[in-house]
């Protein structure tokens, strides 16, 4: 049946091994690139086969587990190298392998001539393998391998230009922040495992087994603790408040990396994880609320920062954070299907955006190089008017931008609108819903604004850079534009498989597909849901219209500020200098963390070392030695060398002894 599922992560592994071990010898970029791309493309083929086979099954049978080999068995604890195929993981493997293949292809062109070309493809394959392990993992531990594995690859790829200090810093920051999340993940895992085990003697970390036992879990209480811990893990991986600061820095990595890891796949792992364990999360209303609030807050928070950035990739990075916020908002309001749906559409358009920006940077870099200039190839202030030079890039970029802004007919609209509607109409959070919706809507407005700001600054107007350079600006080669076109196309039409029922044109295939995965969660959620308050069709239509209007407003503002009246931004910043500074500096969050955690840790470490280890502990150790030596000195001088003193000592001994025993 689906026994061949292990091939999916296996191909990238092979690719990794070949390129990693032999890549240096192969040298030929074409071969290396082909190996890397073929590896992941093979996985894509297998994934398609898996998907087809799954479609062929009846919905309730769409669960398949495969134990490849036993991994850790000790005492009660049992974790196998096991894979789980269900509709959810199907979606994920399709996204990962599909988008992954395109990005591999793209990278052949983008990374051309880079030192360590083979290294890049090896890492990329390794990443795909880890990501596939993550989404296919049949138990929490296999998921955790993938979870950490993608973190590792992220580290390696962010630090790809390791000679740049900023790259090294960013890589380390990414890994460490992920680790903070992993800490939460582990504690969550322990709590769940221990609670089920000690109370019901079900010692398991296997998803299906937990699912089967999930009716034993209480609402709130220990589940809240466990799920909050898991959520901490998710915030780390998916760059949510408070652990989001690594993602913008991660843009130090090559652009395909940003597209694949930091937009389409890895960062969505947190969302996936919540989806995977929806039946646990839903049992804690508190956690659900926290997730929703954090998601909404992140969405708007990151969006505000995005409005003020000048680095093209940073804008996209904050946009990613913000969009991930939307996904979490969806998860938090119990709209798991919508969250995963947005995950998918976001993968399409955000990958496209990143790759497009890569194409732009590539062209800029090339042109600047030719013009012997050392300006920043990623700074939008140096760009402008690129649409003529790079029509394909521009077009795909525009499509994706429209998609992300939530203009009807594009993929982003369907998913985002679903999320906003669910935020408003979900039965779980009572009056908080208005706030959630409002926040989401404003964030959407910001999204439209900063994305179009980006488009306008990059592709419209006049080229702001030296005219010498301008003539060197060319469209990127086919190997780069083909992925762009495919992704752009997907960004355009990808939403139709998940069209809301309301519109009624197409059945919501996507939701139906995922239903078997999430129905249990909905069932549990019903225990505390308030039904039937907001669910009227008119309202839904109204809100939908509202969100479109909001998006259009955002676009309008952007258009006004960045195409028509180019002095507006300046006037705006002059009017609110401190606000702009704060936004531009990302609300000083990095500085805050440095102040609150990093520096205290370092100085505390210094204190412990110099103050405690050396002074106190070693002080005691050497002090004891010193005291003994001191006594040595004293005893030594008692040895005066004089016979009469010696005789006195003897007589003293005799007298004391006699005195004690004879006259006692």
């Amino acid at each position, binding site marked *: 049946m689906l026994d061949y599922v292990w091939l999916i992560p296996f191909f990238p592994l092979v690719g990794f091994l070949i390129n990693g071990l032999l890549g240096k010898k192969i040298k030929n970029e074409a071969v290396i690139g082909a190996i890397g791309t073929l590896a992941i493309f093979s996985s894509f083929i297998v994934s398609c086969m898996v998907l087809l086979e799954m479609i062929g099954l009846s919905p309730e049978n769409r669960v398949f587990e495969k134990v490849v080999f036993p991994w850790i068995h000790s005492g009660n604890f049992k974790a196998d190298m096991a894979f789980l195929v269900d509709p959810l993981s199907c979606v994920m493997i399709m996204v990962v392998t599909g988008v992954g293949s395109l990005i591999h292809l793209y990278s052949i062109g983008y990374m051309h001539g880079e030192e360590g070309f083979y290294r890049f493809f090896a890492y990329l394959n390794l990443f795909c393998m880890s990501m596939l392990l993550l989404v296919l993992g049949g138990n929490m531990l296999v998921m955790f391998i993938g979870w950490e594995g993608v973190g590792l690859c992220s580290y390696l790829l962010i630090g790809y230009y390791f000679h740049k200090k900023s790259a090294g810093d960013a890589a380390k920051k990414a890994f460490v922040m992920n680790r903070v999340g992993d800490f939460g993940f582990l504690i969550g895992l322990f709590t769940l495992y221990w609670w089920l085990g000690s109370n019901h003697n079900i010692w398991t970390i296997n998803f299906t087994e937990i699912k089967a036992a999930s009716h034993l879990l209480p609402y709130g209480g220990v589940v809240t603790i466990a799920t909050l811990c898991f959520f901490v893990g998710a915030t780390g991986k998916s760059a949510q408040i408070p652990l989001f600061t690594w993602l913008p820095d991660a843009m130090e990595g090559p652009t395909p990396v940003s597209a694949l890891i930091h937009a389409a796949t890895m960062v969505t792992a947190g969302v996936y994880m919540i989806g995977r364990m929806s039946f646990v999360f839903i049992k804690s209303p508190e956690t659900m609320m926290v997730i929703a609030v954090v998601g909404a807050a992140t969405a708007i928070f990151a969006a505000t920062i995005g409005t003020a950035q000048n680095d093209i990739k940073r804008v996209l990075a904050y946009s990613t954070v913000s969009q991930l916020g939307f996904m979490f908002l969806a998860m938090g309001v119990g709209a798991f299907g919508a969250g995963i749906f947005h995950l998918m559409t976001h993968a399409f358009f955000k990958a496209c955006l990143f790759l497009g920006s890569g194409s732009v940077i590539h062209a800029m870099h090339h042109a600047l190089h030719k013009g012997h200039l050392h300006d920043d190839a990623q700074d939008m202030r140096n760009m402008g008017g690129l649409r003529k030079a790079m029509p394909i890039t521009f077009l795909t970029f525009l499509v994706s931008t429209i998609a992300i802004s939530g203009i009807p007919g594009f993929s982003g609209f369907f998913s985002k609108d679903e999320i906003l509607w669910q935020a408003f109409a979900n039965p779980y959070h009572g009056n908080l819903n208005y706030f959630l919706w409002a926040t989401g809507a404003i964030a959407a407005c910001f999204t439209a604004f900063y994305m179009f700001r980006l488009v306008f600054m990059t592709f419209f107007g006049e080229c702001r850079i030296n005219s010498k350079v301008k003539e060197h600006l060319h469209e990127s080669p086919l190997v780069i534009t083909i992925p762009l076109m495919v992704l752009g196309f997907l960004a355009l039409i990808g939403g139709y498989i998940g069209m809301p029922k309301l519109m009624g044109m197409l059945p919501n295939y996507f939701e139906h597909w995922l239903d078997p995965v999430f129905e249990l969660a909905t069932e549990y959620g019903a225990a505390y849901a308030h039904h039937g308050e907001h669910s009227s069709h008119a309202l839904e239509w109204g809100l939908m219209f509202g969100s479109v209007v909001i998006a259009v407003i955002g676009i309008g503002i952007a258009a006004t500020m960045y195409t028509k009246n180019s002095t507006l931004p300046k006037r705006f910043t002059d009017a609110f200098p401190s606000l702009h500074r704060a936004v531009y500096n990302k609300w000083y969050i990095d500085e805050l963390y440095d102040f609150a955690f990093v520096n205290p840790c370092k100085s505390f470490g210094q204190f412990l070392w110099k103050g405690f280890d050396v002074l106190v502990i070693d002080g005691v150790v050497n002090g004891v030695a010193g005291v003994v030596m001191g006594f*040595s000195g004293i005893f030594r001088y008692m040895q005066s060398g004089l016979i009469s003193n010696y005789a006195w000592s003897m007589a003293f*001994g*005799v007298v004391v*002894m006699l005195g004690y025993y004879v006259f006692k």
Partner: protein
Amino acid sequence: MDMIIIPAVNFTPILPEIFLSVLAMVLLLINVFVPGDRKAYLGYLSFFGIVATGVLVGAGWGGHIESFSGSVVLDNFATFFKMIFLVAAGLAVLISDQYMEREQCNHGELYPLILFCVVGMMLMASGTDLMTIFLGLEVMSVSLYVLAGFNRSNKKSNEAGLKYFLLGAFSTGFLLYGMALTYGATGTTRIAKIAATVGQMTLPSTNIMLVAGMLLMLTGFAFKVAAAPFHMWTPDVYEGAPTPMTAFMSAGPKAAGFAAALRIFLVALPTLQVEWSQVFWILAVLTMTVGNITALRQDNIKRMLAYSSIAHAGYALVGFAAGNPTGTAGILFYMLSYAFMNIGAFAIIILVGKKGEANGNVQDFAGFGVKHPVLAVAMSIFLFSLAGMPPTAGFIGKFYLFSGAIQKGYIWLAIIGVLNSAASVYYYLRVMVYMYMKDSTEEFDWMQVTAPMALCVAISVAGSLIPGIVPSIILQFAQQAIKLI
């Protein structure tokens, strides 16, 4: 009663003593005819004499013969100790010639004096009468006074002799007074009879005369084994005495002191064990602590080993305080091992030293390990054995001594003991630090290893190592020796 009846005396028990005495006197005589640069022959002669005595002593193993109306006995206990004395004397004889030659005091009398000293010690070990023991002790002591001051032209040696003499005589006074009081309390000087009399007393510990006698005797022996606070002569005398004699003194007389004390306290006064055990407990703690801690800061290696020797007396006292077969067998084993390891160490010191007792500081060992790896390894073995590291004899000895204390319930004594042991490691390691870890300032090219020296080192290495790996070979004898008293 008109006829003097000569009692049928069985001389077997004191055959070794007689043999050695005769040998010593013969040596004294022929010394006159041996030219100054040939005194080594006397050494060889006495060494072979000692070996022969060893055979003689060994042949007596397992027997139990009393003689001189019960004032001397031949038993395993005595035999074991006699072996220790012979080992100490034999090794000391081996290392003497080179040293004496260098210090230009190679007087032939040295060897007879050593032999007389051994005779005295043997009497102490086999004596079963306070009188015999006293006599043996004095024979030993008087010879030792001379040996300590043997290097007449050396001021330090002189001082050592004088100091030892005055303090030794002083302590003899106490010992003797103790014996007198014991005699008064029990009416006899025979060990066995004392035991019988004391055994019949209802509350011997309230008998002031007896207790005082015991304590005074204890003082005397404490002086001989260098137990604090009667130890203060030790560092000075050890430092001043000619090095081979220091080696000899640290091993032989100490063992003899323990032999006699064991005999008296275990056989004659077992009923007072509670009392003397307490005293030995305190003495042991004091002795170990003072010895070890003071040794930490010594630069003169002879003096350092003198303090170490005090500490070792303390360890042995731990076994004594325990007073049970484990502890006492430990003492026997330890004294033998100590003879090997300590004299071995002194042999190396003699080799490293220069004329006029120069080059005797720890610092002078810098680089020794590189220049003379074999000797340095030997020295390391001696030092590790002294420190009580497995797998050396020193470890097994300490193991038994402390085990005795633990078996007896003196846990704290054992703990203090091991802590002392740990502290002692520092100064033993210090020598090794200089030997191996400091760059050499010397070429050590003046050093010459004569055959007797080499033999001594080899025997000592074997004696410190083999009993550590297969301790049974010695321990079973020690066990048997202790069984008979």
